[in-house]
Every structure is written in structure tokens, then in C-alpha cells.
């Protein structure tokens, strides 16, 4: 049983200019764990997902989803022109 959880952690982290190490220390995880979550090689527990979401001040569903995320431009500006 390994449901793929999609995330946009790398994008949000880049946008906020937060390093893996900084995020890892803030949420009590190893920096490799953050990297593996970004690569989709590890699905965080609900506890860790909530801590990451809290760190960025975002709802957890803005960072993690069972469905693939749409490109941000598509979400903001709608479908293709």
C-alpha cells in the first residue's frame, strides 16, 4: 500500500527562499527527508505535513495532494488561452 502523495514543496520553498536545512530544522526533520519528500520518494506523516504547512502559513492541501497539482499559471489564469 503506497499511495503517491503529490506535493509542491520544492516550488514553495524556492519561492520563500528557504533552504532544505532551514525547513528541516524548523519542522524537526532531517534535510534528506525534505529532499525525499520533494522527489516523491517519501510520503510524510500527517503530523510532519501539518508542521510543514504551518511553517509556510499555508493550508496543508496547498502543499500536499492525492491528485497531481495543476501548473500554477493555469490555476491563477485558468485554462490555456
Amino acid at each position, binding site marked *: 500500500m503506497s499511495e503517491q502523495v503529490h506535493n509542491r514543496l520544492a516550488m514553495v520553498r524556492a519561492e520563500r527562499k528557504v533552504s532544505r536545512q532551514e525547513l528541516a530544522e524548523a519542522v*524537526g526533520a532531517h534535510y*534528506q527527508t525534505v529532499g525525499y519528500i520533494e522527489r516523491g520518494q517519501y510520503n510524510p*506523516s500527517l503530523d510532519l505535513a501539518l508542521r510543514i504547512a504551518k511553517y509556510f502559513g499555508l493550508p496543508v492541501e496547498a502543499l500536499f495532494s492525492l491528485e497531481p497539482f495543476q501548473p500554477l499559471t493555469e490555476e491563477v489564469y485558468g485554462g490555456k488561452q
Partner: protein
Amino acid sequence: MTTDHLTRYDRAMVRLMNRGEGRTLYASARRRRVVVAAHVALTAALGGLMTYLYLAQREQWWLLVPMVPLLLAWMFLTGVINSATRGLLELRERALDERQLTDRARVGALAHRAMTLLLLAAVAVLLCAGAVLGAAPTAYAAPLLIAVLVTHWLMPLWVAGTTARDEPEDDLPHV
């Protein structure tokens, strides 16, 4: 994993296990496999020498001389494997995060399975040898027992080194 409850020893070990000096030695899965294979070979060589010393009719203490560099190389490679796994088996549980604890449990389960197969093979070989020779080779019982103990002790390290994943790509250049 929160660092508040870690002792000074835990923090020192976490720093030690996360040093990046030897990163090139275990940067890829192939290199990690080579390191583990070399570690297994060195363990076998050291075990072989000790067995020979134990079984030799005459005292051959000069054999301790080649054991020194072998032991030093073995210690170095143990450190490389521990670095490759970021101390997965060396650090205390409270110094590991949830993903590392999951990895440690998986490594323990895999090592247990591998050891079970190895012990089954060893028992089969001993029984076959006993059937062919008429009696089990009792002279090898003590070295075999020690070999099993050492393998049991080191199997998790070998499994952890072999199954360790690649380091995440370089972090973003501007952060």
C-alpha cells in the same frame, strides 16, 4: 525529531554522522555497493585470519601484523557506510526523524530475512558435510559460531549501506 531533548553526545554524533567530507565515496548506488562489498571482503579476510590463528597447530603471532592494516581499512569503511546512511544505525532513536526510523525498521527487517536465509544455508551445509564425512566437522564449530555472530552484527550495516538512497540534488542556488 526535535533537537531540544538531545544530549550533548547525541548532538555531537548527529554532527559527526552528517559531515560531508567523504561524500564522493558514496555518492552513487554503485559506489555504495563497492564499499559494502569491500567491507564484506575485509570482514571475511579478518575472520579467516583469526580462524587460521585459532586452528593453527603452532603459534603464528606474526599473522597479527597483516591484521593491523586490514583492521584499519575495515574501520575506515565502517565509517564510510555510516556516513552514507547518515548514522541510521549509529544514532539513538531520539536523534532520528520519522523517515529515518522507518528506514531503520525496514533495514532491520531485511537484515533479519537475509540472516535467516544465511543460517538456513549454513545449517544445510553442516548437515550435508556431516552426512558425507560421517560426523559434523566439530573443529569448525567455534569459528563458525563467531562468524555467524559477526555476520548477524554486521548484516544491518551492509543492508543499510546497500539500500541507502542517493542524496537529494543540490539545494537551490539562491538559498
